[in-house]
């Protein structure tokens, strides 16, 4: 017979399958990369300041703004020159004067364009940005600076006012806030006293203590309030008179200006500094203007704290359940049923967990806790309403199947030889489990935690009914005893995206924030995961069960 070793046997199906698998993987990768690029492009571009352009329009009006995009006029035939008429979208700012931040302008209406060097961009606490020119700086009726001196003076003053504003905020939030918190506690103590109605000498003694304490606090409150009024007056003492592009004059307190820049004078370095400062503000400041401006720090904080609390609940719970299922439970119908139930639990829609959390944690447990420990605050619920504790517990319930399954797999992967080695030294089953098996299974268990973290950080639906809010007055962690306030409501990045994108009064302004917030949510999930992965790799090295 002829030697056919060199003839290639055709394997059409196998080749096609290889291409199919490779193609599927590539498409997934492209989708992921595309997602990140879209988010980064739209989100990160928002903080970059372009030059401001002054436009003279055919109707004689003038606007100054940042040109954001250009597109063909929809539904227009090409003109005589063969070109479709274009229009541009301009961020004109000055919402207090014109009623809206953004305008579409037909290019046909533009008479001339220029980039005036002395144009100003002011970011304000209210009404969004102001585009225009500085006229003069005043304190009351006294004129501080005018003309060419006005800008340097304004810039210096804005920086001073920023410090004053920070001090004011500290005073209001921390010092006055603590006193308020203490006064509220005394009020509750008084109600508690009325409810408990202890015998006479004790009652008077406690009442006297409460009255005395309240008086001291009230005195401090009055002093701080007076200080606050004074500081606020000082903050608003200076005003700046501005002129918009169309000549309208506007006077506003310098204290209301967050940031003042001359976008057409600063170079690339200045622009970069501005960019970084805006990004920093975004991640570190509180939101303003119904979440469409300022930062999203409370949402980041709420998300991270909720996820960490959840891990604290879900880890021991899931691991103990897995240890029982894998190590102690005798195989049988019931154990099999439990396993099936656990696996199915992972597939229950998350909103169902939310409803369960509301009915069980919030109403039943929270309501009972209120009746037993906080009766003085009723009918205002303390724990009987959504809060970060209930939200974390709900999510812990949602993610516990994932942890159980992974922990079981981790335990199963510990070789029998290692267990026998420990038992042969006279260790009991529990000692073996605790000292040898669990450490060796730790990487597998952490894999479960990573999956749980990813799932929990992105979950929004169940949280909407167990404690997430669009704007939380205070963080669940602060300087007032007992520091961690489990009953408080919290903000969450996922809900923030929904709220900013779809519930906000100023959708145009909020759109880039949706992308930026989404990008940040991904970053938060990624960094929590990265942390867990680092810990896992460390443990893997330490407790590797096979080496040769």
């Amino acid at each position: 017979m002829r030697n056919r070793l060199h003839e290639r046997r055709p394997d059409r199906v196998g080749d096609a399958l290889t291409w199919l698998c490779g193609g599927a993987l590539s498409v997934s990768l492209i989708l992921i990369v595309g997602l990140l690029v879209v988010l980064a492009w739209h989100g990160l571009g928002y903080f970059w300041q372009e030059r401001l352009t002054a436009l003279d329009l055919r109707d004689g009006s003038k606007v100054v703004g940042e040109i954001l995009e250009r597109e063909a006029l929809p539904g227009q035939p090409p003109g005589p020159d063969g070109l479709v008429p274009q229009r541009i979208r301009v961020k004109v700012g000055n919402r207090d004067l014109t009623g809206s931040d953004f305008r579409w302008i037909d290019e046909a209406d533009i008479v001339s364009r220029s980039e005036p060097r002395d144009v100003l961009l002011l970011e304000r606490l209210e009404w969004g940005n102001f585009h225009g020119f500085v006229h003069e700086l005043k304190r009351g009726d006294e004129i501080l600076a005018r003309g060419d001196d006005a800008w340097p003076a304004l810039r210096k003053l804005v920086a001073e006012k920023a410090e004053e504003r920070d001090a004011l905020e500290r005073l209001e939030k921390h010092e006055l806030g603590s006193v308020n918190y203490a006064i509220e506690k005394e009020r509750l103590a008084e109600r508690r006293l009325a409810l408990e109605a202890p015998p006479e000498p004790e009652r008077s003694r406690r009442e006297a203590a409460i009255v005395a304490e309240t008086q001291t606090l009230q005195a401090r409150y009055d002093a701080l309030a007076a200080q606050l009024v004074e500081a606020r007056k000082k903050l608003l003492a200076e005003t700046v008179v501005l002129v918009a592009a169309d000549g309208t004059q506007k006077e506003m307190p310098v204290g209301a200006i967050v940031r003042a820049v001359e976008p057409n004078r600063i170079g690339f370095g200045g622009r970069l500094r501005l960019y970084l400062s805006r990004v920093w503000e975004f991640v570190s400041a509180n939101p303003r203007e119904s979440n469409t401006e300022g930062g999203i720090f409370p949402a980041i904080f709420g998300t991270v704290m909720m996820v960490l609390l959840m891990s604290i609940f879900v880890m021991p719970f899931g691991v103990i359940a897995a240890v029982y299922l894998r190590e102690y439970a005798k195989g049988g119908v019931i154990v099999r049923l439990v396993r099936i139930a656990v696996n199915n639990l992972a597939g229950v829609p998350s909103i169902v967990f939310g409803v369960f959390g509301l009915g069980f944690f919030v109403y039943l447990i929270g309501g009972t806790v209120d009746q037993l420990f906080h009766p003085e605050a009723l009918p205002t619920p303390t724990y009987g309403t959504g809060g970060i504790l209930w939200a974390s517990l709900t999510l812990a319930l949602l993610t516990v199947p994932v942890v159980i399954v992974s922990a079981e797999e981790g335990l199963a992967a510990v070789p029998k030889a290692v267990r026998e080695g420990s038992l042969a030294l006279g260790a009991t089953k529990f000692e073996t489990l605790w000292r040898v098996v669990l450490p060796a299974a730790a990487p597998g268990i952490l894999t479960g935690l990573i999956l749980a973290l990813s799932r929990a950080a992105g979950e929004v639906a169940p949280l909407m009914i167990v404690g997430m809010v669009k704007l939380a007055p205070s963080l669940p962690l602060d300087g007032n005893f007992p520091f961690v306030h489990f009953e408080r409501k919290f903000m969450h990045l996922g809900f923030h995206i929904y709220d900013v994108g779809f519930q906000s009064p100023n959708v145009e302004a909020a759109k880039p924030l949706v992308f930026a917030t989404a990008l940040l949510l991904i970053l938060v999930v990624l960094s929590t995961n990265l942390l867990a992965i680092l810990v896992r790799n460390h443990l893997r090295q330490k407790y590797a069960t096979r080496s040769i």
Partner: protein
Amino acid sequence: MSFPPTEGPELVPDTATSPRIDKPILSVEGLSLWYGDAEALTSITMEIPERRITAFIGPSGCGKSTLLRCFNRLNDLIDGVRIGGDIRFHGASIFDPRVDVNTLRTRVGMVFQKSNPFPKTIYENVAYGCRIHGMQQTRDLDEIVERSLRGAALWDEVKDRLDESALGLSGGQQQRLCIARAIAVEPEVILLDEPCSALDPIATAKIEELMQELKQQYTLVVVTHNMQQAARCSDYTAFLYLGQLIEYGETGALFVKPQLKQTEDYITGRFG
């Protein structure tokens, strides 16, 4: 699971195939073992001498490992195991319900076929047994770790890296570490289940040498597939086949002049 010792007629060892042993530390009396319905050991009766090396030889699946694992009741872990007959350790039944199996395993240590160091440091591997028995003093532990590692002829090789993972050691070192771990709790008997089957000849030679030293202080029972090894280092040899003890005697006699044809066929390599 409990293993009531069966009170049967005293099974007298067949003098033809049993050596005279003055001071047995372990006596097996009519031991039978079933995995479910399958009988793995059939009515085995033998005595293990103190401070000697006893080797179990036989083809795969003959029950020698199963018999070895009866001595520290490691078969308890397997579901569906039933045991008849008795094993006496210093004259007392190890299947007595009052026996604490953890204490038994402390006194009857074991080294496995595949080295199974814990995923911990070398130091912690050796100290493990002492720690679970409540020893906390670092100074005492240091002493025990050094003594055990010296006892297992490993000290000089690892004394500078006690805090490194035990999994970084070579296969032979790992096996000696497992021996060190076993002798750290000062057992009376050490069971060795094919301790050299995964090792190269040099590592094997070291372990065999070590066994000769350990014999001064401990009773060793070793399961081996390697006939030369049994001939080289054991004092007594038992040949098992299909769950039965075929022949048991002093190693020299058994290898030079086996009493039974089956034994002769096996040790001369005609089957197995």
